[in-house]
């Protein structure tokens, strides 16, 4: 009785469900139409121009609306307009920074051979003077003076910030006590940033008023309109510090050094760029409102404002025109798009759900599935620990390995997908090919070792007539394997020792001194010594597997064969060998995988030496892991894994063929 009413209710519900499905479909169409017509996208908020001047641009400043002054890494000072370089001047020494005087009539350039030059706007040299150290940075103060940071050496205490007039007369020189990386002149005093992650402030009299700790070595300083200090650092942090030296906020934008940080407009928006060519727009509280990978080189200079747009320059000499308004819109667009996708997904699910529910047989299937799921509960409970372990320790690392192979993952630089770079590098890596060749030799010899001696011993023992001796010998052959693997290898290493090793001692004892060698110390024989270690190669695993195979051969076959008068040799070739083919294939398979992956023995014997004579790819991978080159190490692992998988597939194919026979 209840089932009838349930059916009825379900039927009633089916109508509602169908209507829901149609309703959801209509809503999807409406939502997307609304998006297309109301919020239609209007392109990227930035544009990149072609490269203006040659050379790497280190810094540029807008001189007036038409022209920009720039210095390049090949020590040229250039004036650039929208067409390219108008004028240029080659300077002696390496230029390090430039500044424009407050009245925009002079350009100052500092060099690392302790000189500061003054130029007029036609790049005629006006004056030059020396400071007591290479110039790190300079910035012009309001009253026409120049703040200069300079110093001697690296990580020394001989660094100063000084305030000079045009002729090089110093108002003050203040010793900072550690490498200065950047300097910025405010309306009153001068700010500086150091290599030990500090920023500080000097009063107009040159006294240090405060010094504050930030996180990483400072790369860039700039002042906001309200005289607050913006600082960028080596590891992508941007910080805002008040005029009193209080850290207002720190935000990590990037893994790369910050190459530009500057205020973008009066409302306090901040522009930042990193060495990787990424552009950021922050609000006054340091939150990222917009970011984009511009990919035109490191963004390092803000060269001008034009109506709604901001002009930036990269070290490739390309200008990037950023429209702040549409950049801020882009943030909103992102939210709208996300909302749209979520809405679409929810509506689509509703539509599908309602549609399924509206068809009686589908509905029944869903209900049945739900019941099965409920009944599976205790099974899932039993499986839960294994599932978690397998997810974390099998599935995750497999995916990570494949992903890392295509990245530059290391502790030296930020993670980046670099396509096939690792594999291309491997292809031309001499060590890798040496390793592959050695691996090949080890593989071939291991196969020979694993197939001959254990099989011989298994055959000999199997055909003994005394079953008691059979048992005794079988057990005796297993005994040597109680020695741990590491000990077995170390014992052989001991035997190979040139002075005290058993092999050379033995050669002496039988009068063959001329045969003595440094078995592991000579490039030409080291690999063969490693291969010969373990003589006479009765691998216990292979031996027992073969022995088991021989036991499994039916007596009838032998009975009929002995009537036919078949000899020992014929019996081996015609019966034993074909009958234990699956066991041989199994051993071949394990030997194959083991030889490609294993390198613990080589690690213990020679660590790849002498020279590279015993190098194998597995060892190379281990070394790369130890050096934290995880991307490259993964690529080596990936290549080896492909070898192993190829072996597995071959094995599977042959085992299927045998199954058919």
């Amino acid at each position: 009785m209840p089932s009838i009413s349930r059916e009825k209710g379900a039927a009633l519900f089916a109508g509602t469900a169908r209507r829901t499905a149609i309703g959801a479909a209509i809503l999807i169409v409406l939502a997307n139409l609304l998006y297309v017509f109301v919020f239609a996208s209007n392109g990227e908020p930035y544009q990149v121009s072609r490269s203006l001047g040659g050379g790497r641009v280190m810094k540029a400043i807008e001189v007036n609306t038409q022209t920009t002054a720039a210095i390049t890494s090949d020590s040229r000072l250039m004036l650039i307009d929208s067409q390219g370089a108008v004028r240029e001047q080659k300077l002696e020494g390496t230029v390090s920074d430039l500044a424009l005087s407050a009245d925009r009539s002079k350009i100052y350039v500092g060099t690392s051979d302790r000189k500061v030059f003054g130029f007029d706007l036609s790049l005629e040299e006006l004056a030059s003077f020396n400071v007591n150290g290479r110039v790190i940075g300079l910035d012009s103060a309001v009253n026409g003076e120049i703040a200069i940071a300079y110093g001697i050496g690296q990580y020394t205490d001989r660094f100063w910030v000084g305030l000079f007039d045009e002729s090089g007369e110093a108002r003050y020189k203040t010793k900072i006590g550690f490498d200065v990386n950047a300097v910025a002149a405010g309306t009153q005093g001068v700010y500086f940033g150091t290599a030990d992650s500090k920023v500080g402030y000097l009063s107009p009299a040159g006294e240090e008023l405060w010094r504050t700790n930030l996180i990483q070595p400072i790369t860039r300083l700039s002042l906001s309109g309200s005289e607050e200090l913006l600082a960028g650092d080596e590891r992508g942090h941007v910080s805002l510090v008040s005029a009193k030296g209080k850290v207002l906020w720190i935000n990590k934008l990037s893994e790369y050094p910050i190459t530009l940080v500057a205020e973008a407009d009066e409302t306090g928006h901040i522009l930042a760029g990193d060495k990787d060519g990424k552009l950021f727009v922050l609000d006054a509280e340091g939150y990222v409102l917009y970011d984009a990978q511009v990919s035109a080189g490191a963004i390092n200079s803000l060269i001008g404002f034009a109506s709604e747009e901001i002009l930036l320059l990269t070290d490739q000499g390309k200008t990037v025109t950023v429209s702040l308004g549409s950049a801020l819109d882009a943030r909103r667009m992102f939210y709208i798009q996300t909302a749209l996708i979520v809405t679409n997904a929810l509506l689509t699910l509703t539509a599908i759900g309602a549609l399924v529910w509206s068809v009686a047989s589908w509905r029944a299937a869903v209900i049945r599935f739900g019941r099965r799921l409920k009944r599976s509960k205790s099974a899932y409970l039993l499986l839960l620990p294994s599932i978690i372990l397998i997810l974390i320790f099998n599935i995750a690392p497999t995916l990570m390995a494949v992903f890392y192979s295509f990245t530059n993952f290391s502790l030296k630089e930020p993670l980046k997908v670099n396509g096939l770079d690792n594999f291309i590098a491997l292809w031309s890596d001499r060590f890798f090919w040496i390793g592959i060749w050695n691996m090949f030799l080890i593989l071939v010899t291991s196969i020979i070792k694993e197939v001959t001696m254990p099989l011989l011993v298994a055959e000999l023992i199997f055909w003994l007539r005394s079953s008691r001796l059979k048992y005794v010998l079988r057990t005796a052959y297993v005994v040597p394997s109680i020695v741990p693997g590491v000990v077995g290898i170390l014992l052989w290493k001991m035997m190979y020792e040139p002075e005290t090793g058993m092999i050379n001692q033995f050669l002496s004892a039988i009068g063959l001194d001329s045969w003595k060698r440094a078995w592991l110390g000579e490039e030409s024989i080291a690999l063969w010594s490693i291969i010969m270690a373990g003589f006479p190669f009765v691998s216990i695993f292979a031996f027992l597997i073969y022995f088991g195979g021989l036991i499994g051969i039916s007596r009838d076959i032998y009975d009929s064969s002995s009537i036919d008068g078949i000899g020992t040799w014929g019996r081996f070739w015609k019966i034993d060998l074909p009958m234990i083919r699956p066991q041989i294939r199994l051993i071949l398979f394990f030997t194959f995988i083991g030889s490609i992956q294993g390198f613990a023995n080589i690690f213990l014997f020679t660590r790849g030496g002498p020279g590279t004579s015993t190098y194998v790819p597995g060892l190379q991978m281990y070394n790369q892991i130890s050096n934290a080159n995880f991307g490259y190490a993964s690529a080596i692992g990936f290549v080896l894994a492909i070898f192993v998988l190829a072996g597995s597939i071959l094995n599977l194919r042959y085992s299927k063929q045998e199954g058919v026979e």
Partner: protein
Amino acid sequence: MPGKINAREIVSYSLLLVILILSFVPIIMMLSMSLRDSLMIYGDFWGMPWPPKISNYSFALIDLMAPILRTLYLCVVSIVGIMLFATLSGYAFARLKFVGRNMMFWIIVMLMTVPGVLLLTPNFVLADWLHLKNSLEGLAVFYIGGGQLFAIFLLRTFFTSQPEEMFEAARVEGASEFRCVWSIALPLARPILITIAIMNFLSIYNDLIWPMLMISTPNLQTISMALANYAPDAGNSIGKISRPDLGIITSGYVFASIPLLLMFMVGMRYFIEGLTSGSIKA
């Protein structure tokens, strides 16, 4: 005719004996050296270990007892973990019907083909993220995780071959699934569990590369790591160039072999039967 067979047997026996002796050469060398004074070995390599110098063993015992016990602890924790979780899963795969059973088992079989060499790098990174480096328990967690696949595979195969009626009867009596696993499945699975335990013991006890990547503190070294760096000095007593004390080193090797010897004495039967039963035909 019979005479000919005898001749063949003689050849067989002598060949087997020669190969056997050759296989034992390193072990004999180890035992002999471990009972001699290192300076005597340097002086006359072929001398007899008489009178035996037992003090070598007490030196090696002091140095290597801790790593051996540590490694045994690591093995026990790992093996118990592997067997516990894999038994639950193997039972579920073999005896329970649930949504996604075939797909999940297929995934496990596929994962078994992923070569270990591929996982070395990501596991190293993973260990760093999960703060599992430089701890024995962290090492054990990786062995438990890595050991799941094969153990589940073996246990499922085993449980599938057991008669269903037994479990059905227990369920009729009102036993829970956990109770079924604990009271019926586990005792039945003893031989296969011993095989799994032996296999994992051998691989964990002998593992060198992974512990070397994971462990950096000397007082957390496993026995393989400790042996690889084991070089007590023999030179100081004669005040000349320092040379490793071969006597103490080889005594250490003998000590390190004792756990495997014990394990073989207990489990040898299962090990040999498991491999020779002829059931292995991959």
